[in-house]
């Protein structure tokens, strides 16, 4: 039916070649049936890229369909380059998260840098100006030189790229756990602002309209990155060196300015960045979304090296490139805008009416595929799901025998890199460029001002994989609940989420079980909170010879801070203020807690369950209290429980000159197990500080919202003591010593990064 000729010199397609392209027999048969002939190598490469897990979601689509995606605030749900939510006064926020795990495992610096580059393009391609980036990172423990090298390289890569483009990093998270030793996770999130009327979609329309590439020329780098991202990490990946892509943040900045100018001047019909699978995915997806065909001429694509084949050009993942669809009479103006920003642009194809995805090179057709079917007809898999017996057993395992030494245990937790201050990380990220930062990294969520207005947005990214490893459903709920709590602690109302689902090989039933259940938990929580899922990214096959990573569905959330003046910081502010604790305190199970995992080295047991109604009431209460100006600080209890939360509030922000003491009396909470009282990670709890005299007003507001609250103590002296009394004990720590522990934990482990390249 369709015709295509192999490009001169191209290898014939054999069973071997098909296998190299990560296509199974069923998939290959489907291709042959669709074309009614054997595909050419170029075609096979195109199918391989688009039908990779990374581009096609063939194992995850049915599950993703169960996410709530609607709401009055949603201007653009999943399916575009980024989701968009409405804000007051005609503003809108576009945001998206994406993984760059595999590239970062091979080359941490460039892998992380290009990950940031890709997510920025996803956002500005929508017509939004990026105003914040966040990053969520997972590594193996820092006692290994290889992990230190990966951690150091990734942080530098994230920083150098975002800093150069000029987007502030407003938050993130870093966790270290043995499960990530062979397979680090690098997720980057970008948040952009736009006027709602400037929203631009990545769709091709209008037969006869032209396709243009803009930005860097196409090189041989990163060929097959998309299918690479869809296989397990192995020795073989080390040999895949040409797949390393080098980022050029300078060109990205020019691309950003040029793109926004093109959109503002209404010069383009559609625009999309060339991310995974480069020219292939950008052109095929834009055509399919617009229901049209496209024809591309490889001879017109600017290349970095001579002699590139159509196969290489179509599959290159060279960075900092965009694909534009435009009316022919606009081309001159488009080229002028590009030239002003010192960028190249070239017409490489046009929109057709025959629905075909056609590639020409040297005057002949080297690929011709029915366009809609290329994108839509990917086989969908419904893998078996079965919980691992090992996990079931772990949940039922008896509590570890221990003799609590509360004073030492708190210090051990604060010294653990997963809990300790991430100042070493975010000090390498510009967090104040653009001059809109109200709360930078180091608090519960980042907060920025929407320029020219009196309101702001709060942003966070969270995931507690330990909870997911033991119970993916509860862990999924907990992840969304924690993100929402972090947003609400600043005084902002949670609006919506984006997610990055990092899991192992979905063809293994125990992994698919985790995936399905985690998503069910996320979906239930999002429904309860009215925070729809606006998009995200799936990263499967995060496995190394030592096994799959812990299930890590990272949730990025955006909230609205109605009045800038009502923002609430995380740390105690004033000696003499009253300390209050919200939320239920009865569920003191320690399963999955940082205390058991990091101090006693036991991951197991039953974890506290999340009461979604109670969490929602808490969010509303926090927002109302902030609006009424009742809180001096609010910090949620998460990893490490109540005691770590209180200690962090006392320790103060990363650049506070002093910490503040606090004396807490928890005797009224009862119970005889102080470790459970202080370290359990029961949900829905927040440590508040309020000006003396305001306790009654806070209590009344809490009652109105159905949130339990109790006064538990007083903020103490500058550089004073943290003193905690329980029904059966009393504990004390000098705050300056806690500060030293908390802020030095990572720097002291990273003081000789340079040596660590050796371990690679």
């Amino acid at each position, binding site marked *: 039916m369709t015709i295509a000729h192999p490009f001169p010199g191209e290898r014939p397609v054999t069973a071997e070649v098909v296998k190299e392209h990560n296509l199974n027999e069923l998939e290959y048969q489907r291709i042959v049936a669709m074309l009614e002939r054997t595909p050419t190598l170029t075609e096979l490469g195109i199918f391989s890229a688009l039908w990779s897990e990374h581009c096609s979601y063939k194992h995850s689509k049915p599950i993703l369909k169960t996410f709530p995606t609607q709401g009055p605030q949603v201007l653009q749900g999943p399916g575009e380059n980024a989701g968009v939510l409405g804000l007051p006064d005609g503003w809108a926020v576009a945001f998206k998260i994406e993984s760059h795990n595999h590239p970062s495992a*091979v*080359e941490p610096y*460039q892998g992380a840098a290009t990950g940031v580059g890709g997510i920025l393009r996803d956002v500005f391609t929508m017509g939004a100006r990026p105003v914040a980036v966040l990053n969520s990172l997972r590594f193996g423990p820092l006692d290994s030189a290889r992990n230190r090298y990966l951690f150091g390289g990734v942080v530098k890569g994230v920083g150098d790229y975002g800093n150069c483009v000029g987007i502030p990093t407003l938050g993130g998270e870093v966790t270290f756990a043995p499960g990530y030793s062979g397979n680090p996770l690098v997720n980057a999130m970008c948040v952009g602002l736009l006027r709602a009327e400037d929203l631009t979609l990545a769709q091709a329309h209008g037969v006869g309209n032209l396709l243009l590439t803009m930005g*860097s020329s196409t*090189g*041989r*780098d990163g060929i097959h990155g998309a299918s690479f991202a869809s296989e397990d990490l192995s020795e073989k990946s080390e040999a895949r*060196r*040409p797949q*390393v*892509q*080098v*980022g*050029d943040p*300078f*060109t990205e900045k020019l691309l950003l300015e040029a793109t926004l100018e093109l959109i503002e001047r209404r010069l383009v019909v559609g625009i999309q960045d060339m991310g995974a699978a480069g020219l292939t995915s950008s052109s095929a997806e834009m055509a399919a979304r617009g229901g049209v065909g496209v024809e591309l001429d490889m001879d017109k694509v600017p290349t*970095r*090296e001579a002699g590139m084949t159509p196969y290489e050009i179509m599959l290159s993942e*060279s*960075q900092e490139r965009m694909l534009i669809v435009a009316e022919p009479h606009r081309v001159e103006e488009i080229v002028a805008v590009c030239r002003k920003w010192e960028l190249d642009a070239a017409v490489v194809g046009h929109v057709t009416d025959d629905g075909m995805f056609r590639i020409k090179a040297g005057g002949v057709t080297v690929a011709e595929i029915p366009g809609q079917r290329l994108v839509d007809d990917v086989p969908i898999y419904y893998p078996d799901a079965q919980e691992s017996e090992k996990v079931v057993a772990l949940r039922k395992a008896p509590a570890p025998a221990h003799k609590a030494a509360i004073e030492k245990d708190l210090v051990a937790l604060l010294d653990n890199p997963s809990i300790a201050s991430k100042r070493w990380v975010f000090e390498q990220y510009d967090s104040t460029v653009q001059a809109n930062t109200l709360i930078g990294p180091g608090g519960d969520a980042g907060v920025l001002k929407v320029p020219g207005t009196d309101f702001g947005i709060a942003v966070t990214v969270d995931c507690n994989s330990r909870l997911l490893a033991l119970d993916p459903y509860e862990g999924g709920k907990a992840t969304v609940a924690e993100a929402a709590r972090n947003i609400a602690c600043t005084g902002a109302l949670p609006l919506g989420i984006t997610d990055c689902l990092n899991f192992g090989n979905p063809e293994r039933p125990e992994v698919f079980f985790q995936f399905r259940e985690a998503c069910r938990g996320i979906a239930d929580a999002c429904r309860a909170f009215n925070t729809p899922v606006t998009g995200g990214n799936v990263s499967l096959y995060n496995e190394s010879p030592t096994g799959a990573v812990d299930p890590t569905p990272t949730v990025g959330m955006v909230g609205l801070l109605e009045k800038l003046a009502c923002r609430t910081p995380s740390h105690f502010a004033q000696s003499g203020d009253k300390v209050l604790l919200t939320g239920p305190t009865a569920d003191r199970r320690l399963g999955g807690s940082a205390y058991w995992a990091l101090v006693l080295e036991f991951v197991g047991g039953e974890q506290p369950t999340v009461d979604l109604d109670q969490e929602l009431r808490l969010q509303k209460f926090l927002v109302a209290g902030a609006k009424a100006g009742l809180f001096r600080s609010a910090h949620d209890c998460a990893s490490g429980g109540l005691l770590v939360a209180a200690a962090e509030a006392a320790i103060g922000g990363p650049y506070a000159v002093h910490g503040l003491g606090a004396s807490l009396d928890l005797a009224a909470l009862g119970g005889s197990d102080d470790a459970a009282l202080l370290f359990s990670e029961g949900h829905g709890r927040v440590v508040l500080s309020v000006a003396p005299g305001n306790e009654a007003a806070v209590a009344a507001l809490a009652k109105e919202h159905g949130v339990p609250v109790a006064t538990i103590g007083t903020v103490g002296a500058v550089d004073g003591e943290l003193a905690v009394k329980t029904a059966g004990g009393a504990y004390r720590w000098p705050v300056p010593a806690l500060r030293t522990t908390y802020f030095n934990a990572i720097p002291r482990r990273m003081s000789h990064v*340079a*040596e660590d*390249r*050796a371990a*690679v």
Partner: protein
Amino acid sequence: MTTFKVHVRVVPRAGLLDPQGQAVEHALTALGFAEASGVRVGKAIELAVKADSKAAAEARARAMCDKLLANPVTEDYLVEVEG
């Protein structure tokens, strides 16, 4: 034992994008150095190495490159020993 002066050049691997080299090339052209092309920017490392022979010094320097000085994924290196 003699002390040898060693020069190491670490350059981005051919085929990989070198944005820095590109920017420098543009700047040179703009400054009127039209005769310059193919600019690549890497690292120059100078060090002194104590060794029994020139060959031994070179071998040690190469080991340093493999272990630390060059990134095997993205860079190539070149070692020169003086004297």
